[in-house]
């Protein structure tokens, strides 16, 4: 991780508990993982096909959604 990534990860971990109103640590972890993945993709956007980035963003959302679905949580 770069210093910038490291600082962003610290911030993400700070804000998640007040935003993600579910008890499951797995879901919080899934959200953190997705945010970090999206930031990494954004940094390297020039070397990845734009359509692929969008697909990977959607895939990150769906995979966090699977964790949510497994918990039986709803809006």
């Amino acid at each position, binding site marked *: 991780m770069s210093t910038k990534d490291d*600082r962003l990860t610290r911030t*993400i971990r700070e804000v998640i508990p007040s935003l993600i109103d579910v008890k499951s640590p797995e879901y919080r972890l899934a*959200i953190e993982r997705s945010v970090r993945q999206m930031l990494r993709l954004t940094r*390297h956007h020039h070397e990845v096909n734009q359509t692929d*980035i969008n697909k990977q963003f959607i895939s990150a959302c*769906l995979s966090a*959604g699977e*964790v949510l679905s497994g918990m039986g949580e709803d809006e």
Partner: protein
Amino acid sequence: MLRLHSVRIQNFVCFVDNGGTSASGVSFTFAVDPARPLTVIRAQNESGKTTFLRALRWGFYGEKGIPKGEPDKPWGLQPRDWKPNDGPVETTVSITFSTDGMTGRSEAPVERRYTLVRKVTTSPDGRTLSGWSRGPESRELTRHGDAGDDQVMGDADELIAFLLPFRLRDFYFTDGDKAMDYVGGKAADRADEDTVMLSVTQQREQVSDAVNDLLGLDMLLRATERLEKVIRKLEKEISAESGSELVKRLQEEVDQAVDELEKKQGELKKLRSSRAGLETDLQKTEAEINKTLAGIGNHAALAAEREQLQRARKLADDEQLQLTKALGELLGDTSLAVALAFPAIKAVFDTLKPKFDKGEIPAYYLEYVRRLLRDEQCVCGSPLSHGSALRARVETRVGESAAVADRDTHLGYVYQDSQRLLSSLERPAGWSHRADDLVRKRRQSQKHTEHIAKRLDEIESQIGGVKDDALEGLRKHSADLQRYIAQTDVKLTGVKGEIEHLRIRLDGDQSQGMEGLRKRLQAAQHKATIDKSKQYGLQAARDILSVMRASYDHIASRDITRLALMMDELFGEMIVASADRNLARVEIIKHNREYEILIRDANGQAVPMSAINGAARRALTMAFVVGLSRVAETDAPNVVDTPLGMSAGVVRRGLFGVTVKHSSQPIFLLTRDEIHNVEDLLLQYAGQYYTLTGEWHAPEWGHSHNGTQQVLNRKSPRRETLVCDCSHEEYCGVCRRLEDLDTLPKPTPLRMKI
């Protein structure tokens, strides 16, 4: 982390082959010892300091890192005395640097060393006005392995873009004279120079670019924007599959509003950029009018007065703006509301105080009983387990008294609030005194502005009588520009209003209890029968978006506050005990996603940047560069050309000491004059010294420099800069100058270096 280890420059303007002692150009090794991190490159003016900075910029960024020059006279980076008849000449800059391996994709913090070599050939070209042209650049990045297994990398530009983004070039490679760009405006003591003042918009852009990049805000913003698009795509897919007419209709409304919002945001951006361009153009035109007027007959005094009045008007306008803002802030002050509502608050306080004193409010008891139910244990020790008769009885009583108890609790809070508000009125005259003071100052400032405007009108009418075609053309152009700026301002206000309206339509307005289209769409989608996996994915996407937005706000608020505090501290240390002590506080003002550096005087009034002297502005710039690097935990070199110019005495020592102490790798290009009074600090912090000597300063070239500072021993027949490793206490056969002769007084005794 980035460390510069060395640079080799060959055939780049005045850096050729070091007087023939090196066939491969001139080399510099940079200090990397944390105890002595400073590299000093000493040189008189016009000896190659700025060229050195440009060579580094070219090495890293290529063509875009150097000046463009004029269309018929492009900026040449070939040796100064090169002529097309000499045939093609190859320029090379080779930079060796290291990183800690944290280059974005790598996770392992392992030091990696790289060498970046950039080359270009300048060849005779009869088709161009200059008689030469440059071929395509080549650049090669080599990663050095521990076992000597070097590897040529294919992504040089990507690595450099990550380590030293081009738009931050002025942040890492700072030209002291242009360092003002970060704080904006033209220094008060440089008013005579033919420089164009940076507009507030441009200054904000410079500061915001650095802040947004180094704190990672722009990356978060880009990711947020992309995720918003992804969410829209998911929403559309879900709406299309739902089969619900309501969902489809709401989706159409959302799409329409979002499209319109994007269009308006694009318009806003264009208008802002167009306004910045008009502002710069107007400044240039006004300067040209003054110059033209001064050259006509006996109008020099009139031109000088006009210029002086224009500066005074700018200061007065800035002051009025600040006073108006301060008045606006005061109107939003709680103390005003408390003063106005005093009778009502006092009545509430008087009514509730007896109840509070008797313990009737707030109703703590109910909260206590609820806690007992949660703990399933009565105060008497009996269990309050679920299903027990005792629990059922207690729950019934709680239910019965809940409404009364909640009211009493609420009244308790109201009483506490009224008590707090009344105690804030300890100095009833405080607010009106401050308001009176601001109104008085604003009135004075307004009178002053009117006086200036009247005199300027008189001057303009006098100028109107001057018959000169060029002058008339310029004045007409200036009037047109002023009209366009006013028209642009009207358009800007309109577009901002439309954007706000669309945002409320989409996201609602909590203060008005208004629900936005997005919320309504979400609710409708939730009720419709839809593929659940997508719905969960969409919910997760919205959670991710809220995390990204909150992270952005968190950084923008917490880190910007830290940056302002750090800048304030560093700036205070730099200018301590100086005449600029009245510059009391540094602040960073946030404008949407842009930031502006502001400085206040001891009375809390904002000081226009154009009214601050050059030394204080350099100090402010360095406080920004160093402060932001620390807040962002960025570990990178700061190459600064003439960082101490315009400063003297304690300010110079403060500026130097604080910058060196807080930079991880300072590389300073200093004149001999700048070194005066910081010699002891150089001895303390410098790990590497170099002296640049411009051979054209030798008497043979007829370059007298007022009879002083001449190079005594010319070593090269070429117009080149020679490099030696003499410190400020030494001289050698290459760098010895007329002023180094023993007969002349000097601050530090020099010794001959063998």
